[in-house]
């Protein structure tokens, strides 16, 4: 934050370039992508380095980062650049040659910025964040940073329990990031203009006083001898007891990337993404996103049409993703998909809808989207194998619904369906998991019958369930990986022994152990932060990548570090919590009423379902009154006008052609 530093922040590119010839996929480090924005340093009053602590190929397509890039760079007094995790081959060279963590736009050192804004989508990015902060030359612990160091602020779903990162971050923001980054920028500008009153703490106190920015250092945590937290309490005046999440009204009023960056390097998603609504009230009890992003707020149909049109023109991409937590639930999804399919019929543009609903309506949408002849697979997510299991997790779909839907799909010409399930859910028995095999057999049976063909296939993808904070399952005992692995073996054997259908069913699963570490980090407290640091010091990075992840390293360090408090890995994961226990994130308020959440957990144990408040009436989750907000859904009744797409104005075409 030293000013002026324009001349003092030269590009590091000339020092980086010689190293790039020696690393894999160097293009990810050179920047300069189509639609990237490089602003003059000196003119900016607030400078953001937006960081995603994973590789470029994963981080760049992240929609949250793209939205904040747009929101910040739209302001003429703010500058935002991007930085991603560098792979170990480049990290080694950077350390050897004294080159710090850099941004991609200006190849500026990350440490020169005012803010490092970190998007945390998964707990398995924690070690990468420590690696990036260390490569940046920043003191690892927030308490050791000076007034000239950037403020490290994290957001994203994982920020709903940032406690394992509490010692390393300066601040965390819950909820929607758009207004939050503008508020932080404005407070920084005022603080600079006033001559930096109170130094670094003065700025952080200004943030904390808003009641919407969590500064972990301003809270003290005390522990009982047996391990549980006694209290999390503010340790200085002016700091609120609880921190509230940000929530936006009217998504149409907020910028959405219309000129998103077009990567040169290959990334995991090569499409133009439009967020068609935010939030979800289906109430699936395992789903953290559905609990912490309430209420539902839709973008309008005509606005979505405009974004798609502009986004495709600005990027040259040929795939559009209509994103949300459950896209088929948009109040005008039928009109939207039909009218977009009409608009782009005959062009090479394809539309995709990540869909998880299991009903005939979903199939109609899929048919609209595959009009151009391209048929991607049909995917459904029943999540639980038995009816009882699905009631426990509040995924309200019956086996008959599923069979009716896949039957219609096979009649319409699909040959393959993919089904997602979880293993290790609360109250789960062996029989619940074996029910997955029965369901798959019925799918193949009905497929063969209605299509009259033998080449019907079903892929089962089974993930290990990890209880997440701010959900009804936050009190649940995580299943032991040995139990998960045992049940998956039973499932595999059941499918293999099904001589009529077994060969048509393929089962995909991973071992349950990485889930245990994810569970440790998800529901961890500040003591777990010391495990993260120990693992990183032992060489752990890129934990989301199986070739880098080491369960043994995590287990060893957890055992060593946590022993000093008489607790261990199991204490954080496979131990059930009771209602009276102080959870590490209790002071972080995503709007859910704590009693409602506990009641929802009790309902889960009783196999009681709760309806979606968009159709079944309010269930008193508390979000709307607590955050003074409300559901914003259509229909608007508006329509997309036909559009000429895909061909150039005549100027480019020779008249005698």
């Amino acid at each position, binding site marked *: 934050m030293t000013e002026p530093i324009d001349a003092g922040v030269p590009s590091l590119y000339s020092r980086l370039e010689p190293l*790039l010839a*020696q690393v894999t996929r160097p293009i990810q480090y050179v920047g*300069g992508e189509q639609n990237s924005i490089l602003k003059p340093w000196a003119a900016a009053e607030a400078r953001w380095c937006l960081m995603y602590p994973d590789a470029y190929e994963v981080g760049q397509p992240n929609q949250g980062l793209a939205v904040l890039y747009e929101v910040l760079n739209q302001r003429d007094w703010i500058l935002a650049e991007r930085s991603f995790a560098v792979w170990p081959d480049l990290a080694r060279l950077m350390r050897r040659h004294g080159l710090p963590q850099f941004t991609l736009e200006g190849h500026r050192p990350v440490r020169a910025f005012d803010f490092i804004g970190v998007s945390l989508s998964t707990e398995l990015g924690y070690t990468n964040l420590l690696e990036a902060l260390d490569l940046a030359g920043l003191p690892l612990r927030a308490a050791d940073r000076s007034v000239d160091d950037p403020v490290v602020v994290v957001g994203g779903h994982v920020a709903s329990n940032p406690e394992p990162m509490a010692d390393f971050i300066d601040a965390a923001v819950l909820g929607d990031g758009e207004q939050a980054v503008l508020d932080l920028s404005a407070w920084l500008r005022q603080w600079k203009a006033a001559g930096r009153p109170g130094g670094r703490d003065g700025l952080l106190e200004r943030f904390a006083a808003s009641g919407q920015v969590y500064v972990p250092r301003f809270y003290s945590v005390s522990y009982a001898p047996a391990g549980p937290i006694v209290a999390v309490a503010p340790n200085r005046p002016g700091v609120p007891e609880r921190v509230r999440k940000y929530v936006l009204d009217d998504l149409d009023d907020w910028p959405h990337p219309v000129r998103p960056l077009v990567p040169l390097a290959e990334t995991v998603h090569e499409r133009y993404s439009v967020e068609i609504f935010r939030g979800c009230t289906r109430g699936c009890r395992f789903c953290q996103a559905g609990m912490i992003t309430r209420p539902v707020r839709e973008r309008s149909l005509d606005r979505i049409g405009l974004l798609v049109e502009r986004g495709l023109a600005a990027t040259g991409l040929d795939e559009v993703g209509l994103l949300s937590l459950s896209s088929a639930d948009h109040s005008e999804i039928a009109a939207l998909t039909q009218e977009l399919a009409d608009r782009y019929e005959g062009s090479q543009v394809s539309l995709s809808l990540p869909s998880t609903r299991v009903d005939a309506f979903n199939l109609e949408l899929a048919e609209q989207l595959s009009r*151009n002849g391209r048929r991607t697979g049909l995917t459904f997510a029943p999540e639980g194998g038995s009816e009882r299991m699905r009631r426990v997790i509040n995924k309200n779909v019956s086996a008959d619904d599923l069979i009716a839907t896949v039957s219609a799909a096979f009649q319409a010409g699909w040959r393959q369906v993919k089904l997602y399930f979880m293993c290790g859910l609360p109250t789960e028995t062996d029989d619940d998991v074996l029910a997955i095999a029965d369901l798959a057999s019925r799918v193949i049976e009905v497929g063969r019958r209605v299509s009259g063909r033998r080449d019907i296939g079903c892929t089962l993808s089974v993930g290990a369930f990890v209880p997440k904070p701010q959900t009804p399952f936050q009190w649940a005992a995580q299943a032991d990986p040995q139990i998960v692995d045992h049940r998956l073996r039973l499932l595999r054997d059941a499918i293999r022994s099904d001589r009529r259908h077994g060969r048509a069913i393929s089962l995909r699963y991973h071992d349950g152990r990485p889930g245990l570490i994810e569970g440790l980090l998800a529901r961890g407290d500040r003591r777990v932060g010391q495990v993260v640091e120990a693992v990183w010091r032992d060489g752990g990075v890129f934990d989301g990548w199986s070739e880098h992840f080491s369960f043994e390293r995590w287990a060893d360090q957890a055992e060593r570090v946590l022993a000093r408090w008489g607790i261990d890995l199991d204490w954080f994961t496979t131990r059930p919590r009771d209602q009276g226990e102080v959870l590490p994130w209790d002071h972080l308020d995503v709007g859910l009423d704590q009693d409602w959440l506990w009641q929802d957990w009790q309902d889960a144990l009783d196999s009681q379902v709760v309806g979606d408040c968009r159709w079944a009436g309010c269930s008193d989750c508390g979000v709307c009154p607590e955050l003074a907000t409300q559901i914003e859904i259509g229909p608007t009744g508006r329509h997309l006008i036909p559009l000429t797409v*895909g061909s150039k104005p005549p100027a*480019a075409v020779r008249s005698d*052609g």
Partner: protein
Amino acid sequence: MARAQPPQQPPPVQRLLLRYAKRGRLRFASHRDFARAFERALRRAGLPMAYSSGFTPHPRISYANPAATGAESEAEYLELGLAQVTDPAVVRTELDQALPDGFDVLRVVERVAGPLAERLQASLWSVDLSAWPSPARLSAVERFEAAEQVWVSRLTKHGQRDFDARSAMVSWSWREADWQVVLRHQVPLVRPDDLVSALVQIEPSGQTPLPPRLLRLAQGPLLGRTVGDPLAPEDPPCESMTAAGAEYGIMRARSETQPAPLLG
């Protein structure tokens, strides 16, 4: 219920040949990175692309012999099929504007007879050996030339392969510390980094911490000891200076060249 095949796409009405450069930072792009960027640029430019038939139609583009990741090039070529006849000059301007800086479209012409790949018989490479002590680089090149064979090893997508790097060299010259080499395209392809491996093998004292920069100056038919212009309407006579070489004024077969004065 059988899935109906989508309608057949009509064949292209016009085929264009493009020469483009890969410069500066974008030398780190792989060929796949370039191909993705190029197809998106075509769509942004709104050019009337011809597509292949089938469930996933692809724009009709044939790439030939792309330079390796990390090498710069002034002489990359591809062939493009269009669904409407379009002025090549317009295609050049529109595409060049739509592509990121560093991927630069240099020339666009109507296709000349014969497949493009057959016209790309050799390349003129410039290898920057300025980091080598001058006696070492002179001696290494002299000894490389004198050798009958120099076997090098490189990891290819088919695994570790050994091949003779010497056999591909047609001619060479010095331009200050840049070693400029005409390499015949053969199977397995000998790349300029293979030449560097060969030089290091011959003269280990030349080994530098960073690999030398590589730049392809020309690519085309092999005309005696020089590289011709693949976009020329018909094969020019062997002795003429080609457009590709003339642009740089450096095409000299080794036998005609005195060793350049060495710069310390």
